[in-house]
Every structure is written in C-alpha cells, then in structure tokens.
C-alpha cells in the first residue's frame, strides 16, 4: 500500500517490511524446484502445499529479514485454520502482497497472478478463485486491524465482475 493509503494499518506494517516482489518470486521458484524432487518433504499433497517448518526454512535460506519471517508465519497460521500445519503457499503470499505492493491495481494484479500460478490456464480464473483472493485480502486487512468488508459485499464485488461481462443483460430483458 502506498502513502495515499496511510490511514490503513496495513500501510503502517508495510513500512517495516523488507521483502520485495522479486523475493516472493524467488520463494516460489525455490518451492517449485523442491517439489520436483521425488524425496522432497516440502510438498505434501499438492504442488504448493507446504509444511510450516519447511516454509520458514525456505524463507531463511532466501535471506528474508526475521521480522518478515514472523509476519509470514503469522499469515500462515491465519490461513491454516484447520491446524494441519500445512497450507497452500500461494494463499499466504496473496495475503503478504498487501504489504509489498504500492497500489490497489498492482495488489489485485499480483494477487490474481499469484493465485493462478502453476495452473494450466494461465491468467484465466474461475469465480471461486477470484472470491478466494478477495476473501484473503479482506481477512488480512481484518488481521492487521483495519475495517473489513462483509462477506456479502465481497460476493457482490465478484458477482458484479461476472455480470459486467458479455451480453447477459440482453438475454435477461428479451
């Protein structure tokens, strides 16, 4: 979040974050490299499902600042609601992007790019994925103490994206 959003707690936290977008990309590359190894302990079931200890190890290996590691670990716990000690690392990074990006447009772009990482249809997302991205961003704002949108408003946002596409309204009124 940039200076224009200085009334956000997220912005206040982003001023003490050292990591950049390139660092996040490096983490993904490290995970992808490890997932290709057959005896890897990092990826458990799916491509980006990573255990917490392994995630922290990777962050330290990539030279992340200890405070960034703490923030990412907290975001990991926030997303790992079932306490399985593993979660999709793309979701953690989507939450973390709020602290790294400079504008709303850049945040959305990078978040959608991150969630579609590793998918067959690159840059194509279905409704469930888009809803997940906005829910994550909303939850992260709540986690840092900012005011949040109700789930109905998040659903309305995604619904309106779909109704804005194509000639659906013409079909309705015919």
């Amino acid at each position: 979040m940039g200076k224009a959003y200085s009334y956000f707690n997220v912005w206040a936290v982003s001023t003490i974050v050292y990591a950049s977008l390139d660092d996040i990309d490096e983490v993904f590359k490290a995970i992808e490299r490890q997932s290709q190894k057959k005896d890897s302990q990092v990826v458990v079931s799916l491509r980006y499902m990573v255990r917490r200890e392994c995630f922290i190890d990777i962050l330290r290996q990539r030279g992340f600042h200890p405070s960034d590691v703490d923030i990412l670990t907290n975001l990991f716990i926030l997303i790992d609601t079932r306490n399985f000690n593993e979660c999709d690392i793309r979701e953690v990074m989507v939450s973390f992007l709020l602290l790294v990006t400079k504008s709303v447009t850049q945040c959305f772009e990078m978040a959608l790019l991150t969630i579609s990482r590793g998918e067959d249809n690159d840059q194509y997302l279905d409704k469930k994925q888009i809803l997940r991205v906005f829910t994550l961003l909303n939850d992260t704002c709540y986690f840092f103490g900012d005011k949040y949108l109700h789930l109905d408003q998040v659903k309305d946002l995604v619904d309106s994206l779909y109704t804005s596409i194509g000639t659906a309204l013409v079909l309705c009124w015919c």
Partner: protein
Amino acid sequence: MCYAGAEYCLLPIYCMFTSTPTIGKIDGVIYYPHYLEFLSTHPIIELFTSAQFQGAIQDKLLDDKALERLVYFQK
C-alpha cells in the same frame, strides 16, 4: 403451491431470478487482466479504501487503557 398447502421455498426462486442476468458466465473462467481496472475502480473497493470508511489510524491503535482492559478481560 403455498395456498394448496405444499411447502415452498422462497430462496431458490429468488436465486433463479437473480442469476438470470448472469446466464452463461456464472461458472466460467475469465481473463482477469482485462478486468483489473474495473475491479480497482469498483464502488465497493472505493468504499473500502476511503478514509471515511476506514477512519483515522489513531482510532484503530490500542492505547494503554485499552490494553489494560483487554488484559483484565483475558484474566
């Protein structure tokens, strides 16, 4: 149906009518780079990022008294 004594459910009927404008796109995939501008200038996002909605950052921070109250309740 209600008059005849049969059970009816209002919600599916409401969903049927509200989903009519989204025919053909409700479950599809979209090419999101085309809609980034739309999303970032959406009224809900404008509302969310407005200072009026978020309020001053001083109001969100916990002062000493608020922290004491929290610690008291946790005990």
